[in-house]
């Protein structure tokens, strides 16, 4: 058993946050000087093989964040609601999979939610300064007072996590309980999990703990058991232990090789710089042309010719039609 995080001290000094503004590693649409000293990276480890699908984590998440999910419909499956919502930051996704090797029916239950990527696509896509921040301990957090509700984070995210609220038009997702972690607590979901399928600690501790779990799974026939800490996004601060780590997509479409979409990279990278340069060039070319060539003014003869044409008194005749350029003077 992983040693549980002790209950908080009631002393007033224990309520002082251990990280904040000074620990911001990245800030959306802004340049920040990274803090000189990085906090110890934290991580949540979700051991899918130990999950019993009780949804205590889902309930704890709603409770801690003071959210209420709408009463929905029974679609004949265990998933409830059917997808992440602006209120449901974490969701149990149930997959029934028949293992072709053993012919066993496996019930794969994955707790979906923000993965807190080391290279967060949401933050990269966000146009609003400071609406998304990444703390040096790895937590990616949305700052709602700066969010404009454009939904670019949804397009940036490789995991399809953020949701825009129809109430306040800002984006919501798992905060990794940054408020709890700041005072030395683990996330609410971790606290509520009855089987320790969710554990929380430093990233190194979690990797070490996962190693033991994977060894155990392998000894029991899950030879492809492994840790999901995808390198395409620089690793994540929410990791999974999967029985079938060679096929993450079995787990309700968990991406096999998540990365920030190259389309998003192109849009936020080359398009931005080339676009601004091209527009600047067009404006500068116009300015230069005006300076060099001068304005194109109507000459007095033009007015005279027009008057002659209107009076019918001998304006120059039209040039021959095009296609006979040699005829034109």
């Amino acid at each position, binding site marked *: 058993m992983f040693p549980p995080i002790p209950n908080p001290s009631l002393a007033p000094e224990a309520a002082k946050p251990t990280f904040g503004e000074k620990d911001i590693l990245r800030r959306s649409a802004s340049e920040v000087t990274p803090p000189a000293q990085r906090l110890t990276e934290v991580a949540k480890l979700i051991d899918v093989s130990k999950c019993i699908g009780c949804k205590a984590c889902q309930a704890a998440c709603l409770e801690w964040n003071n959210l209420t999910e709408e009463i929905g419909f029974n679609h004949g499956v265990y998933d409830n609601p059917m997808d992440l919502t602006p209120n449901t930051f974490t969701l149990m996704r149930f997959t029934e999979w028949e293992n072709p090797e053993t012919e066993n029916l496996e019930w794969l239950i994955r707790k979906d939610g923000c993965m807190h990527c080391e290279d967060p696509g949401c933050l990269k896509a966000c146009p609003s300064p400071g609406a998304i921040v990444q703390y040096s301990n790895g937590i990616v957090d949305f700052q709602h007072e700066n969010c404009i509700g454009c939904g670019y984070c949804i397009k940036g995210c490789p995991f399809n996590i953020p949701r825009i609220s129809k109430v306040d038009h800002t984006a919501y997702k798992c905060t990794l309980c940054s408020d709890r972690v700041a005072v030395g607590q683990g996330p609410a979901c971790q606290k509520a999990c009855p089987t320790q399928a969710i554990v929380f600690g430093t990233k190194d501790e979690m990797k070490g703990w996962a190693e033991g779990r994977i060894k155990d799974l392998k000894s029991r026939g899950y030879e492809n058991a492994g840790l999901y800490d995808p390198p395409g996004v620089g690793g994540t601060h929410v990791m999974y232990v999967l029985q079938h780590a060679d096929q993450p997509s079995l787990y309700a479409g968990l991406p096999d090789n998540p990365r920030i979409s190259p389309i998003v990279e192109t849009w936020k990278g080359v398009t931005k710089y080339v*676009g601004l340069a091209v527009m600047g060039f*067009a404006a500068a070319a116009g300015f230069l042309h005006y300076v060099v060539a001068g304005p194109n003014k109507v000459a007095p003869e033009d007015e005279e010719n027009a008057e002659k044409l209107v009076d019918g008194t001998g304006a120059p005749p039209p040039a021959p*039609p*095009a296609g006979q350029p040699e005829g034109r003077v």
Partner: protein
Amino acid sequence: MVAIDPHARAAVPVPDDVEPGDAVRPGHPVQVKRYTVGARINHWITAISLVLLALSGMALFTPKLFFLTGLFGGGQWTRAIHPWIGVVLFVSFAILFIRFWRANLPAREDVDWVAHSADLLAGREEKMPEVGKYNAGQKGVFWAMSGLIIVLIGSGIVMWDQYFYDLTTIPQKRWAILVHAVAAVCIICVWIIHVYAAIWVKGTIGAMTRGEVTGGWAWRHHRKWLRELVRKPDPGARGPAE
């Protein structure tokens, strides 16, 4: 030489590039009606929409210009209002398109005009062919605006999450954003060309403010159109030219 005789107009079909309301008013100088009140209002609604769209769009395009959201009451307002201005632009431009498309159809002299466009920029206007109401450059602006506005409204709807989120997938939305950004850069460049041409060619802006240009302006830049108007005075505006 075509006779300049108002009575001949019955025999001459109205050329494509002569638009309703176009007419010559003799005088010193000659004045030429180029745009009706309706066309001008239509143009300026489109123009104001395009400028507001460019400002709000660029605010969301690059963090360096995010401060432009201040013009629209902040980021939330900018995000909410931008697509609606886009709808206004689309409708307004659609009406403008119906007004102007016929006069912007390709003509034989366009090829020659394009071949001599370097002469135009160098100030050798006398080498240019006589053109109708619009030269090939203006036609290019018209058709580029038309095409780009279709692309922008199409991609814009795909990324208008507030109402159309469920209609498309996230990968489709990613493409839409990229296409929208590239098309926006293109349309801003077309707009720069359009505005620069109006500033560079003196006497042009009056066409879209008072609706008139001088005869000399028409002689210099759109001689074929002027000849057509002289040949066929506008029967609607007033009586025969005599």
